């Protein structure tokens, strides 16, 4: 069994007097893909921000390895080109090696021709791919994605899901992804955390065989699973 790389014990977070998360406990193993779902305001982004050590918390959090983070609004540095954005976090190598790594990432995200473009010159899907490329460029062991495709149209989002499916199959990486889209969570994740009532109300194992394609969403089993998940988010009392 893979080792635990992310864990939380009695984790609580509050913004002033407003408690957002209370007594959260979980363990995530190496190479797991975790989907985090829940209604707006249930603390999904707060949970990722806590694990990335962006905000103060109570309890124990243990994250082993470098974190790559992809924010909801991509947060690419608009004054840097695509190549500069990707290379920003690569600090442990010399200039020539850095160039090589950037070129490799550009190839992986299929944006080799856009190396000298600025983020404002790219489409939504391309921008999101650069954000993912930047988060992965320095080989993080843990990748945190906060609603990475929420600003994309449905067609681009489907393309991005295909792209992520391909990418994670090639990488030895643990992923935590916050999403509003249950399809996205069920296609990509190994387990889904349902956030409700300031806590993780349910942990749903996703057992569809791998490697997956988007075609599974048209199966009866997938629709049933999605319905169950939806009812847990909307009707579960906790």
């Amino acid at each position, binding site marked *: 069994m893979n080792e635990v790389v992310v864990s939380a014990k009695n984790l609580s977070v509050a913004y002033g007097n407003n408690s957002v998360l209370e007594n959260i406990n979980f363990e995530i193993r190496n190479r797991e893909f975790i989907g985090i779902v829940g209604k707006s305001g249930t603390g999904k982004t707060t949970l990722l*921000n806590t694990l*990335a050590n*962006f905000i103060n918390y109570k309890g124990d959090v243990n994250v082993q390895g470098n*974190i*790559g*983070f992809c*924010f909801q*609004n991509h*947060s690419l*540095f*608009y*004054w*840097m080109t695509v190549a500069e954005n990707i290379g*920003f*976090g690569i*600090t442990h190598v010399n200039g020539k090696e850095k160039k090589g790594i950037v070129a490799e990432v550009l190839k992986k995200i299929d944006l080799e021709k856009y190396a000298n473009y*600025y983020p*404002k*010159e790219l489409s939504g899907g391309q921008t999101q791919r650069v954000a993912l490329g*930047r988060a992965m460029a*320095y080989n993080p062991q843990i990748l945190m994605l906060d609603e990475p495709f929420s600003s994309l149209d449905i067609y681009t989002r489907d393309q991005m899901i295909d792209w992520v499916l391909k990418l994670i199959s090639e990488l030895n990486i643990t992923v935590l992804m916050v999403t509003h889209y249950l399809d996205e969570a069920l296609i990509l994740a190994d387990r889904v955390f349902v956030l409700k009532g300031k806590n993780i109300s349910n942990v749903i194992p996703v057992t569809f065989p791998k490697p997956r394609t988007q075609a599974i969403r048209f199966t009866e089993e997938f629709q049933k699973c999605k319905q169950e998940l939806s009812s847990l988010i909307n009707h579960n009392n906790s």
Partner: protein
Amino acid sequence: MPLSKLNKLLYSILPVLGVILLWQLVVVFDIVNSALIPPPTKVFKAIIEWANSGDLFIDFYTSIWRGISGLLIGSAIGVLLGLLTGRNQKLNLILTPVLNVFKAFPPVAMLPIFITFFGIGDFSKVFSISFAAAFPLWVNTHLGSSSIPIEFIRSAKLLSQSRTTTFFKIIIPASMSSIIAGFRISIAISFIMLYVSELAGASHGLGYQISSSHLSYRMDKMFGALIILGLTASMIDLLFNRIIKYFFPWVQLNRVM
């Protein structure tokens, strides 16, 4: 549809030519007294005469030197203060109330105080221009640097542990649009202060020429000096824009027009 280079040039030049033509017409048709407002042809002759005497270059150089020095010193101080108050909560609490009081003082009204302390030489002139130029840059840099999206800072924290790198590669560029806007305001204010500071205790300079021509009733030369002062400020703004476009091409991409 984007405008061609020729169209852009025409859009910029035609209004200027229109104003000059209108000016000539109102004088020729005696709508205004030509002794008070001389026609552009007479003003142009006065500028040529001024240039031939060699004084134009000296006045121009003196003013440019004072204006640019004051602008650059004031801007550097303004940007530094803006970054300090914008990014450091304690320094913001300590410095902002004091700076707000100084900001409220009209720079023109401060000139007699500067002359009392520093005399009538170049130092008080440059100091007064710096004083006036610093505040727009302080306010703009403060606003720009304090409103950088938290995600930029968090990304930098994850991608690079160095605070120096974050400061130079994230905070300064992310505040750059506000700094540029502040600098352009400071250019205009610096030239107002340049004129005012050269009214007292100056023997050269464009401001001095405007004032002395007015006193000697040489309205043609006064208008000539005014035009050169205005053109200089406008050229510096244009040059600054070109520099920004060259060194910070991404600024252009964030503009609506």
